[in-house]
C-alpha cells in the first residue's frame, strides 16, 4: 500500500494495540499462529472486532461481531468513515500533514449514512457506530484482513476502502497501528516481491515505470526487460479463450481446480497447444499436461527463502531427499534454459538469492548468513547493518516535510454489490473459505489424517434447513448459474438464513468451483470466490434449464 506491496505491521504489534479488527478473516482457523498474537493482545485488554458474514471461531473471541452481508464491505467502511468524520474523531493533524484528497473522500462517503449502511450490510447501525468509534478512538489499532476482502470482483476497491479508514484515523506508520493483510500461502508475499506478478520486476519494482530498476536488470542480465506488463492468471485464461495464448508453463499451481468457474478453466487449459506442468504432485492440471516435470518440495526438499505476511524473509532448508527423479525448481529451469540455448550455469540457491539482492534494494542487507543468524529479516533491509523493518511508513509522521515525502492519497470508492446477484431463482448467497485442518485444493493436506476432517458439505443455517425441509446430512443438489453439484448438507448455527458455506478442499469429491463465478477484479485478477448465488434442491429429477454437472468442460 502507498507503493509498498506488503502489510505495514508485524505480528507482535497485535499484542501491543488497543483495538484489533479482523475484516473478512477467520484467523483462528486460517492463520492460527497469528491469532495467538491477537489473543495475547486481547488478554492484555485490546478489543477485538470481527467483520465476517459467518459467526466464525474468530468471531467467538470478539467483543463485537459484525455479521456483514457478503460483498458489502465498502458500504460498511464508508459508513464508518462518515461516522468518524461527523463525530469529530478524524485525525485532522495527520490528514493535513500526510495525506491528500481528504475533501473529495469526505464528500464521497457523505451519502453512506448509518441507516443506509445498515440496509446494505445487514449490520445494525449501532454496531457500525461502535466499531467506528472504537477504531477511531484507539491509541493503536490493527486492521487485518484476508480473502474475505480480496476474493471479490472489486477486491482492490475493498482494500482501498480499508486503507482510507487507516488514513482517516492515523492508524498507520506507528508501532501498534497498521494494516495487516494476512497472506494465504507461505510465499505468496515472496512470490510478488520476487517479481512473479505481471507488472513487477524483482524487488516489487515496476516493470514499466521504474527506469532505475530496469537499468539494473538490463545491466545484470545483459538483456532489456520487456517494456510492458504481462497478463495475470485471469487475463491468461481470457487470452486462452481468445486463442491468443496457446502454450503455458505452470509451476506449483493447480488452476484446473483452484480457479473460479472450473469448467471454463479446464476447457481453456485443455485447449492449449502445449501445456507444461512442474509440480510435486500429479495434480488435475498435470493430468491435462503434455509434459510433467517432477519438482522437489520447496519447503522440505530444497534450499531457498520464503516471505511471510509480516514481510519477514526466512530460509527454507532441505531436510529430505526428494523422491525418484524429482529435481529442484532452479535446476529444472536452468536445464530448460540450456536446452533452449541459454546457459545460465548451474547456480546454487544462495547465488540466485544474491543476484536478487543486487537487483532489489529492499533485500540488499539480507545475506543467507544474516537470515540464518537472526531468524529472518523483515524488508526493507537495505544494507548489512540494517536490523530490518518492524513497520512501514513511519515517514508519514516525520516533522520534516522532505523526510515525510509524498502524501498518502485517499481513494474514494463506491459500494458495488457482488456480480452474481441473488434472485428468486437463486436466492441463497454461497461463500467459500478454509477450515482449520485443510488447505486450498487439498493436495497437501489430503496426505495426513485429521480427526477434525468431515469432508465437503454445504453448510446452511439450521433455520434454513428447517424451512427447506432438509435433514442434517441429507444430500442435496446445489445449482448456480454456471454449474450443478451434489453435496451433503450440514446444519451450522454460525450461519444465518440466506447464507451458505463451502470449502475448496475436496475438489475430487465436490468441485465447488463449478459453482463459483469468474468475475474478476480488473486490477488484482482475483475472482469473486466469495459470492455466488445458488439455490438448493432436494434430490429428484434433474433441474430444468440448468447446465449439466461438470459445466462446459468438454
Amino acid at each position, binding site marked *: 500500500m502507498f507503493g509498498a506491496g506488503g502489510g505495514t505491521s508485524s*505480528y*507482535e504489534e497485535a499484542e501491543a494495540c488497543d483495538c484489533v479488527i479482523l475484516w473478512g478473516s477467520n484467523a483462528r482457523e*486460517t*492463520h*492460527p*499462529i*497469528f491469532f*495467538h498474537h491477537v*489473543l495475547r493482545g486481547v*488478554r492484555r485488554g485490546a478489543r477485538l472486532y470481527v467483520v465476517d458474514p459467518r459467526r466464525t471461531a474468530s468471531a467467538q*473471541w470478539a467483543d463485537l461481531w459484525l455479521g456483514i452481508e457478503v460483498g458489502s464491505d465498502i458500504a460498511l467502511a464508508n459508513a464508518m468513515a462518515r461516522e468518524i468524520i461527523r463525530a469529530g474523531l478524524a485525525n485532522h493533524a495527520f490528514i493535513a500533514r500526510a495525506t491528500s484528497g481528504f475533501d473529495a473522500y469526505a464528500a464521497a462517503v457523505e451519502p453512506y449514512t448509518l441507516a443506509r449502511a445498515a440496509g446494505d450490510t445487514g449490520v445494525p447501525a449501532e454496531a457500525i457506530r461502535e466499531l467506528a468509534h472504537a477504531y477511531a478512538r484507539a491509541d493503536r489499532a490493527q486492521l487485518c484482513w484476508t480473502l474475505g476482502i480480496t476474493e471479490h470482483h472489486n477486491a482492490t476497491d475493498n482494500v482501498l476502502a480499508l486503507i482510507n479508514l487507516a488514513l482517516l484515523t492515523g492508524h498507520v506508520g506507528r*508501532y501498534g497501528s497498521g494494516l495487516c493483510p*494476512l*497472506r*494465504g*500461502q*507461505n*510465499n505468496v508475499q515472496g512470490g510478488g516481491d520476487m517479481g512473479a506478478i505481471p507488472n513487477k520486476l524483482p524487488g516489487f519494482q515496476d516493470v514499466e515505470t521504474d527506469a532505475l530498476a530496469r537499468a539494473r536488470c538490463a545491466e545484470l542480465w545483459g538483456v532489456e526487460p520487456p517494456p510492458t506488463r504481462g497478463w495475470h492468471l485471469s487475463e491468461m485464461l481470457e487470452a486462452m479463450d481468445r486463442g491468443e495464448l496457446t502454450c503455458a508453463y505452470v509451476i506449483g499451481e493447480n488452476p484446473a481446480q483452484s480457479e473460479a468457474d472450473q469448467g471454463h478453466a479446464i476447457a481453456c487449459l485443455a485447449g492449449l497447444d502445449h501445456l507444461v506442468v512442474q509440480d*510435486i*504432485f500429479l495434480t488435475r492440471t498435470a493430468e491435462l499436461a503434455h509434459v510433467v516435470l517432477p519438482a522437489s*518440495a*520447496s*519447503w*522440505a526438499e530444497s534450499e531457498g527463502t*520464503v*516471505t*511471510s*505476511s*509480516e514481510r*519477514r524473509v*526466512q*530460509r*527454507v*532448508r*532441505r*531436510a*529430505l*531427499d526428494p*523422491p*525418484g527423479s524429482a529435481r529442484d525448481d532452479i535446476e529444472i529451469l536452468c536445464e530448460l534454459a540450456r536446452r533452449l540455448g541459454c546457459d545460465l550455469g548451474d547456480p546454487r540457491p544462495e547465488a540466485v538469492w544474491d543476484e536478487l539482492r543486487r537487483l532489489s534494494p529492499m533485500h540488499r542487507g539480507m545475506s543467507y548468513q544474516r537470515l540464518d543468524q537472526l*531468524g*529472518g529479516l523483515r524488508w526493507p533491509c537495505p544494507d548489512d547493518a540494517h*536490523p530490518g*523493518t*518492524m513497520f*512501514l511508513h*513511519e515517514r508519514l509522521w516525520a516533522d520534516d516535510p522532505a523526510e515525510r515525502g509524498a502524501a498518502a492519497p485517499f481513494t474514494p470508492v463506491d459500494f458495488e454489490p457482488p456480480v452474481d446477484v441473488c434472485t428468486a431463482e437463486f436466492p441463497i448467497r454461497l461463500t467459500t473459505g478454509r477450515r*482449520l*485442518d485443510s*488447505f486450498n485444493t487439498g*493436495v*497437501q*493436506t*489430503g*496426505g*495426513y*489424517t*485429521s*480427526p*477434525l476432517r468431515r469432508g465437503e458439505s454445504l453448510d446452511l443455517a439450521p433455520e434454513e434447513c428447517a424451512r427447506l425441509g432438509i435433514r442434517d446430512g441429507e444430500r442435496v443438489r446445489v445449482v448456480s448459474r454456471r454449474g450443478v453439484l451434489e453435496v451433503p448438507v450440514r446444519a451450522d448455527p454460525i450461519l444465518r438464513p440466506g447464507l451458505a458455506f463451502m470449502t475448496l478442499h475436496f475438489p475430487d469429491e465436490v468441485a465447488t468451483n463449478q459453482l463459483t463465478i469468474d468475475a474478476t477484479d480488473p486490477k488484482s485478477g482475483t475472482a469473486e470466490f466469495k459470492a455466488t448465488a445458488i439455490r438448493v434442491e432436494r434430490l429428484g429429477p434433474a433441474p430444468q434449464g440448468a447446465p449439466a454437472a461438470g459445466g462446459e468442460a468438454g
Partner: protein
Amino acid sequence: MTARPLPIPPRLVTCSVDGAPVAVPQGSTLLDACRQAGIDTPTLCYLETLAPVNACRVCVVEVEGSRTLVPACSRPVEPGMAVRTDTERVRLSRRLVLELLASSVTLDRAAPELRRWIERYGADPGRFGPPLPPTHPRDAAAPGHHGAVLVDGAEACHQPVKDDNPNYVRDYARCILCYKCVEACGTEAQNTFAIAVAGRGFAARISTEYDVPLPDSACVYCGNCIEVCPTGALAFRGEHRMRGEGTWAEERQVVTTTICPYCGVGCNLELHVQDNAVVRVTSPLGHEVTRGNLCVKGRFGFQFVQNRPGEG
C-alpha cells in the same frame, strides 16, 4: 529505519546466590539469577514461554529469612536477598521430589537432565518399595475418593496408553502433572482448553472434559502440548510406534529448521528426520513468530512429502 518504543531500561537488582553477588534486571526471578550465576537449577514444570505454575517444587531454594523453601522459577528477586541453592535442606527437598515422582511415574523417556539430577541429589526411587499395580482405573477415581493406604510398595500412576486419534498418543503413566500441557492448551498459548487436571491428591490426572476420547473433546490437534511435555507422556503416534518396535533412534536423527508450507504466517518448523522420513515436528521456543507453537497443519501436515508410491 523504524523502531519500536523502548521501555525504560529496567533497574538492576542485586542479590547474592551462594554467597556471590548477582545483579539482574528488576522483575527477574531467582531462577534467572541462579542461571546468570551459572548454577544448574533443576526445573520440571517451568518453561520460558509459559507463566510459572509452581507445581513440581524441584527448583526450590533457601532464602535467608524465609520460613519455607521458595520456588526459584516464580519468586522475583528483591534487593539484598541471600539465596542458597545447595544447602542440606534444599538437597533433601529436591531429592524427595525426584524420588516421589520417579517412584510413581515411568521416566525413561524424560529429558536427560532429569537423570542427571536424580544422580546428583542421590534420589533413590526404589526406597518406597516396588511399584504396585493399580487398585482401580485412575480415570474412574471420584472426587474425594481415597484407596486403602498401601504399605508394601509404591503407589504408581500405571494406566493404559490412550491411543484414540491418528496424530498423537497420551501415555499418562509417564505424566508428572507439571501442568505445562494444560497451560499450553489454555491461556498461555492455544486457548482451546481441551484438557485440565481432574481429581485430587494421588488421583489427580490430566483429562479431557468427562474423560471423553480426544476426537470427542475440544482438541484441535495443534500438538502444542506435545511440544512442552518434559517426560514423553505425549508423543507423535509414529514416535510411539517406533519406540514400541525399537526403531526409534534419536542419535541418528537430524533436525532441520524450515518454514511451514501452508498459510502465510511463516512459522518455523524443526523437522526431525530419521532415515529420510519426518518423525517429529517442533518449533523453536525462542522464535518470536511461533514461540514454539504450531497448528495442526504445521505439526502433522508433513505427511504429503513422504506418501511415496512404492514405499511403506
